[in-house]
């Protein structure tokens, strides 16, 4: 008798649980045409993106199309996409920087190619390099939303006229450097490969040749490293051990006249400093070519397993439109990849945004190859060795190149 009772209760509770689970899932799925969008924005950037979503929903209300945004914490975001999108458990649209794009394309079933939807009208509204960073082997996989790159930030009190060439820069910087009081004419994270890339690109250096074949130890790269070592050692215009924190502190205390950094620094500059933004100088030693920083581009992608691709593209198109770009520039203080935004009077009047817009003309898209993640750690080691004088640029880069080559070979099955 007792056993029978237990059995019954067990069955009952089981069936209750089942019904509850079914009810829950049916509530979640009972939706119309709802687009799910993942992003990792926070603060004012999130506020701006929510505006874009609201505008999109207002526009498509009659069509019964509704976009819903989900903010995913950044730390887990990339892994979440990698794990859930290919299994059909992801969103319809997601936003991410271009550095993971190549990996996702090669892994398959993650990013939909959107070449087919692209008209000349759509293509022509972007700054060319930003669209290029969304392109993998001549196929476009997403539309660029915002970009970030470094530019020159100078203390107006110390520097009257921003230098246009490196000779001018060195001259100005030398006159403002006083090592005893700890002031420097120029400060930037020159031992960080991302920041160094601006000089590397000016000298015509690269990370990968097609193949992909790492060419870190190429003559151009070595020259660019020797050049930055000249700034550091011979001219003595750079501080030792540069870190982002140090550079901000120096600039805020008026001890660094010029810094190279990105929009992320602007929020940290103290209110007492009157600063200006200018384009990075041209490098006389590289035949007058401009310094070309790498840029990271946030792209908006359609997930391959999505069932609402056409609607998803409507959103991709809308989010990169001039209207949406304006919201992101005004509310989010972001720099949209849509160049038409900068023609709007209120944006053109904004010195900050137009300064980054001017710099992006000379920016290079950071490679979107999957192998790029294998570059950072060897490159950082090599840069540190060079800056500390533990190895010549050629040797240090040679070691890094060999390490990366091994990683590439292991991946692409080249024996």
């Amino acid at each position: 008798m007792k056993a029978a009772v237990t059995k019954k209760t067990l069955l009952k509770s089981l069936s209750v649980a089942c019904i509850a689970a079914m009810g829950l899932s049916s509530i979640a799925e009972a939706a119309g045409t709802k687009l799910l969008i993942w992003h990792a924005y926070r603060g004012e950037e999130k506020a701006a993106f929510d505006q874009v979503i609201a505008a999109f929903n207002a526009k498509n209300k009659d069509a019964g199309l509704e976009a819903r945004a989900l903010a995913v914490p950044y730390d887990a975001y990339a892994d979440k996409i990698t794990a859930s999108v290919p299994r059909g458990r992801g969103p319809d649209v997601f936003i991410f920087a271009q550095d993971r794009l190549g990996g996702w394309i090669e892994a398959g079933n993650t990013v939909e190619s959107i070449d087919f939807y692209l008209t000349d009208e759509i293509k022509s509204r972007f700054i060319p390099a930003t669209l290029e960073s969304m392109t993998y082997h001549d196929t476009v996989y997403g539309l660029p939303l915002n970009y970030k790159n470094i530019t020159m930030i100078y203390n107006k009190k110390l520097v009257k006229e921003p230098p246009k060439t490196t000779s001018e820069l060195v001259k100005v910087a030398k006159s403002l450097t006083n090592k005893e009081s700890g002031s420097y004419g120029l400060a930037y994270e020159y031992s960080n490969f991302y920041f160094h890339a601006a000089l590397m690109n000016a000298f015509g250096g690269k990370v990968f040749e097609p193949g992909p074949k790492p060419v870190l130890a190429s003559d151009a790269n070595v020259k660019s490293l020797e050049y930055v070592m000249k700034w550091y050692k011979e001219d003595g215009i750079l501080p030792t051990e540069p870190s982002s924190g140090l550079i901000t502190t120096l600039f805020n205390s008026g001890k660094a006249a010029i810094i190279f950094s990105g929009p992320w620094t602007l929020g940290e500059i103290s209110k007492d400093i009157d600063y200006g933004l200018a384009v990075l100088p041209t490098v006389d030693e590289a035949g007058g070519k401009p310094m070309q920083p790498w840029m990271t581009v946030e792209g908006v992608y359609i997930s391959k397993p999505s069932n609402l691709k056409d609607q998803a593209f409507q959103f991709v198109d809308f989010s990169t439109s001039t209207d949406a770009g304006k919201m992101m520039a005004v509310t989010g203080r972001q720099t949209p990849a849509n160049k038409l935004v900068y023609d709007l009077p209120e944006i053109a009047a904004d010195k900050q945004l137009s300064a980054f817009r001017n710099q992006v003309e000379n920016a290079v898209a950071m490679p979107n190859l999957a192998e790029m993640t294998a570059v950072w750690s060897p490159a950082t080691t090599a840069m540190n060795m060079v800056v500390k004088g533990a190895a010549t640029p050629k040797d240090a880069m040679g070691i890094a190149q060999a390490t990366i080559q091994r990683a590439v070979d292991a991946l692409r099955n080249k024996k």
Partner: protein
Amino acid sequence: MKFWKSFSRHNAVGLLLACVLAGFLGVLVVNQTQAQLLRQHAERGAIMQVMALADMVSGAMRQNPAVEPVDNLGTILQEWQLYHLEVKTIRVVKLDGSRLLASTASDDFKPKALPRKLTPDEKALYDLGHRLRQAVDINREEGIQRKEEMEKEYLTDGLVKISAPYKIDDKVAGFVQVSAFLNIPETGIGTLPAILLAISPLLLFILLSQTPFFTSAENRKSATRLVVKPSLLAGILLLLGLGVFNSYCIDKYSGNRQNWERQLVQGHHDQQAQVANIFEKLNLPDTYNGNRSYSLAYLYIRTPALNREDPRFSNAGLDAKVDEEAISEVEKTETGLVRKSLWGVFALAALTLTFFAVGWAARLWNTFNRYRYAYLYIAPAIISMLVLVFFPFGYGITLSFTDSNIYNASKPLLDTWVWFKNYVSILGQFDLFTKTEDGSVLNYSSFYWTLLMTFIWTIANVIVGVSVGLMLALALNTKDLRFKTLYRVILILPWAIPNYITALIWKGMFHQQFGAINQVIQMFGGSPVAWYDSTFTSFLTNLATNGWLSFPFMMVISLGALQSIDASMYEAARVEGAGRWQQFRYITLPSLKPTLVPAIILSVVWTFNMFNVIYLVSGGEPAGSTEILVTKAYKIAFEEYRYGYAAAYSTIIFGILVIYSVFQNRISKASSGNN
């Protein structure tokens, strides 16, 4: 009947099940493998045909690429269909301007007459074309045949859709898509051998076990004979039955490969003749002719690392011959694989038989019956353990035998199977030193360096954790100490805060410019230390962080043990004239041992795999020298994307911990015995 009693019965059931299992699985293995090979073979033939057609299309397109409709394109397709009755529809798509140039499917003419632009519904065709172009470009760039330069898709009702690119000036300009019925010959072993295998050993067993050899009176008296004899008989019968069955299967399986390959080459020659006929019939000029090297990549059996410089890609295909040597080599490995899996099936059957013969099956059934409800209640736990623990664990170990990485993660694991290659290359990293111009440098990326670092890390941490924890516990154990509870709460705090938060705080404290530690050093007139620049100081930062994290645990454990020591022992010692050190050495320490040893054993395991601290504090700097095994495995998996290699790394970590736990068992036994 006496026969149906005891061990004879177990053996009979076991033998039946083993034979049914072996027969079913064996037929399945052979038939599946054969069907797969036949399908591949048929696919290769069909792909060659599509490529030949693509070559002709490219010839037609080359005449005047900009003009539409393309001259002769429609007639070429029609003629082609006359030769190939299995072909249902053909489509030709041009990438530039995304145009559908020609088609034999009536549905394609619906929106508008051909040639026309692809409609929004035909995005799949557009994407397909660009995928093919990408595949050709990528292969050319990398110099290997990593991607297939065609795509196939199985439709319902036996149709297969094959798409192959056509090139103009060596660039992919579009593609040809053919839907055709794939002619796969029906072969395979029927169910008869399996049925025979299931019945005959059992019948023989029943018959033989009635003979006097088994039923004699003295046999029945001896328990051993009663058990051993029938088991032996069943074993021999299983071996015999499966031996015959396996050799029959392999015999049926092998020997076809040569014929298939010959057929393919013959098909290739026939195709050349057809192309020539179409040329003649349509009166096409010779400029229509492509280079005819189209299908060669699929004509020959493919070796795993087929290079693009391989002459098989570039030689003209007019005099294609059968490559006997390659075929017999491939055939040998394929047959070997089938043989291996058949013996695997045999092993499984033998296990099944043993399981029954020894009586485990009966015992298992009885226990299960008796504790039915117990099993029902723990079923959720069993299932969740299976799903959450054992499956990922097994998957990880399987992965470690593959070469899986981001580029081939979507392929089945068996396709990237490399056996022990990962293990060999990890364990074979004896190059601890790399030679440079200024002498040799330690190679921090070597497995053995990381292993050494992991050991040093573990031992150092346990020493720090135990000594600090024990010291604090002794201090807190002082009688009449005021605010004891307050101290205890404060000292446990480091343990209560999530360890990654603590790790990030410590990382900040070791910062060269702004870190609290360097500030203090400067306050006393020292010069700031670049903590992450040398292996030793970088290691110290990790050690300090983890020491901070691990002492509270040791303290709590020791404190508990200290409080349980009988005070009268100290009293007696004092009466005997023992000093403080002697009291500690001969009373406190031995009494702490039974509690401390398990705690140390646990903390060794935790520290060995302490990912958070290493990853967040030193991050392996400088140059990966302070990396431990887990963080290294993480970097291989998520920075280099080599999943198989990283899985092998993790399996080795697991192996080390298994060895450790074996020793640990002995140690804990010894320590409890001592007590």
